[in-house]
């Protein structure tokens, strides 16, 4: 039993106190550990719709001619980037395993040079693991001079392992202005 207002703490109180303080710091660390944990979890499950950030090797044996999957393309500009950016084809049908190339058009409508970065996301999230990009402009920064325009290619295939209940997948690109952070 400790009496209040004494300088020395009862050893039992000290022990409980130490454990709780350690618990607090551990949980603070856990909050940050959730960030890599979440990324790992999403890599495994495709939960957040993120696609591969490195070029995938095309390694498919046989195209599934029986099945047609609709792939839709959407583009949007993050706040404050003065570009025109859109898919040149809105929607295509592919057989799983088949390689396809689609083009996106981008134009820097400002006078200054801007570096853009497209961030892809696939919906539904589970399909992200089966959408494989062999070549994509989103793997790199896109520097465009003032008023310059470009056609950018995306080569991809849909993995034949794609779950049967998914017949449409939507690939959305959001374009960000990263001039400031790259310039540093």
């Amino acid at each position, binding site marked *: *039993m400790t009496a209040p207002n004494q300088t020395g703490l009862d050893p039992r109180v000290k022990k*409980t106190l130490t454990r709780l303080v350690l618990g607090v710091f*551990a949980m603070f660390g856990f*909050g940050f550990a*959730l960030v890599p944990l979440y990324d790992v979890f999403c890599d495994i499950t495709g939960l*957040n719709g993120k696609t591969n950030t490195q070029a995938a090797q095309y390694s498919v044996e046989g195209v599934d001619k029986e099945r047609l999957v609709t792939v839709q393309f959407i583009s949007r500009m993050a706040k404050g980037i003065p570009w025109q950016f859109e898919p040149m084809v809105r929607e295509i049908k592919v057989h799983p395993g088949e390689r396809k190339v689609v083009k996106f058009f981008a134009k820097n409508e400002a006078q200054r040079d801007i570096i853009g970065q497209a961030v892809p996301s696939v919906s539904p999230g589970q399909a992200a693991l089966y959408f494989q990009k062999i070549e994509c402009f989103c793997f790199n920064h896109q520097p465009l001079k003032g008023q310059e325009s470009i056609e950018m290619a995306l080569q991809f295939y849909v993995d034949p392992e794609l779950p049967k209940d998914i017949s449409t997948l939507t690939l959305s690109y959001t374009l*960000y202005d990263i001039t400031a952070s790259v310039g540093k």
Partner: protein
Amino acid sequence: MTTETISHDSHDDAHDHHDHKMTGIKRWLFTTNHKDIGSMYLWFSFIMLLTGGAMAMVIRAELFQPGLQIISPDFFNQMTTVHGLIMVFGAIMPAFTGLANWMIPMMIGAPDMALPRLNNWSFWILPFAFTILLSSFFMAGGAPNFGWTFYAPLSTTYSNGSTAFFVFAVHIMGISSIMGAINIVVTIMNMRAPGMTYMKMPLFVWTFFITAYLLVAVMPVLAGVVTMVLTDTYFGTSFFDAAGGGDPVMFQHIFWFFGHPEVYIMILPAFGIVSTTIPAFSRKKLFGYSSMVYATASIAFLSFIVWAHHMFTTGMPLFGELFFMYCTMLIAVPTGVKVFNWVATMWRGAITFETPMLFSIAFVILFTIGGFSGLMLALTPVDFQYHDTYFVVAHFHYVLVTGALFSIYAGVYYWLPKWTGYMFDETLSKAHFWCSLISVNVLFFPMHFLGLAGMPRRIPDYALQFADFNKWVSIGGFAFGLSQLIFLAVVIKCIRGGKQAEAKPWDGAEGLEWTVASPAPYHTFEKPPKVD
């Protein structure tokens, strides 16, 4: 139970000359007495209740009619945001900490909290936190306007410049609650009177014990997530910024990992309070004491694995939706155990309807309504319709206002004679109860229908077909706000005098706190009582 009553000739009086008691403002600034600190917590939380309540009045005034008439949409967002922050962190949580400070040492037969100086500090940093938060109203850009849930990128990329103030305020509030929680755990684990085993502790103490563990576990996660928001906004990190490889949805996962246990932090102590008052006024022992303890612990455990039910609409695999749906529905089982135990306690009891009992009975009924609407929201398929509508607003106000707040009123009325030494004005307190009960239902019940009909939350304007219900809701809101001033009158009147309270003013009450005189002497249980 045999106990010793400690009586002091000089008891709780601001200008009293006890050996280590100072006078005037210094007494309150430097006090390490759990009763003083408890009182300060309670007064602070009531001031915050009125502050946050005033913001709710502004919101309801704007929503009285369709169209924009009184305030701008941006200021409306600031009102909803700061109202939420103040009510959660400023009103409900400090009120519970205040009750814990006052009552836990007296209930377990301890002379004070285990760490009295830490206790002083955990209270005194709170006013600074809320000064920082409220000061942002007077700055360019205004107060936080991104919702109390501060979803990224609203609080990062699209912040109005208040993010830093918000983050530091939340950090201080978090440190305060963590220190308060540590103190509660250390006190309960080490300072119980001889003979008071864990399973002999009053349920009130149990619920605070478990709540304190929840606080220690999740407040640091909140501190982590606000820190990430801070560095994303000002230091160029990309935790939640998709352009830099982050993920805004991850914000919601981390936030709700804190946020869901947080809602139990605000309701488990309420369970403890009504588990004290209902047996007292039913003149029966609490039905199923040990099942109550285990139910509280189960709810606390389950609260960690249900967070994603707040984000069903973010796009989750079917398996995830089912997992979080079933886990959430599972919480209804221990909660049901509790509700049935309260009803069973009242069953064939010799019930009298003093004000604390009225609030407790209202709690059981109205909290259950809130629980049921929670169960509806837990169902993934229908949640897509209810998400972000007034149905959600109705749900969480039923559990937080008629749940947490009503239980606090029950607790305050129950222990007020012990604190002040006087009985409160019965008529006035019943007026407070009935005015609150009627107006709170006029205020929140129609919101269910508004939500089901599709009125979105956090929007300052609405479609014309919602006009009638919103008018009723606003009238209920103003009436509820005014009713709380009756409470203030009751408390002030009770402090100033009234019928002298006996040591045990409620004949069915049990527990060590009733073995000391009323008002409770400044120092109690300096020699521990013996509990058989």
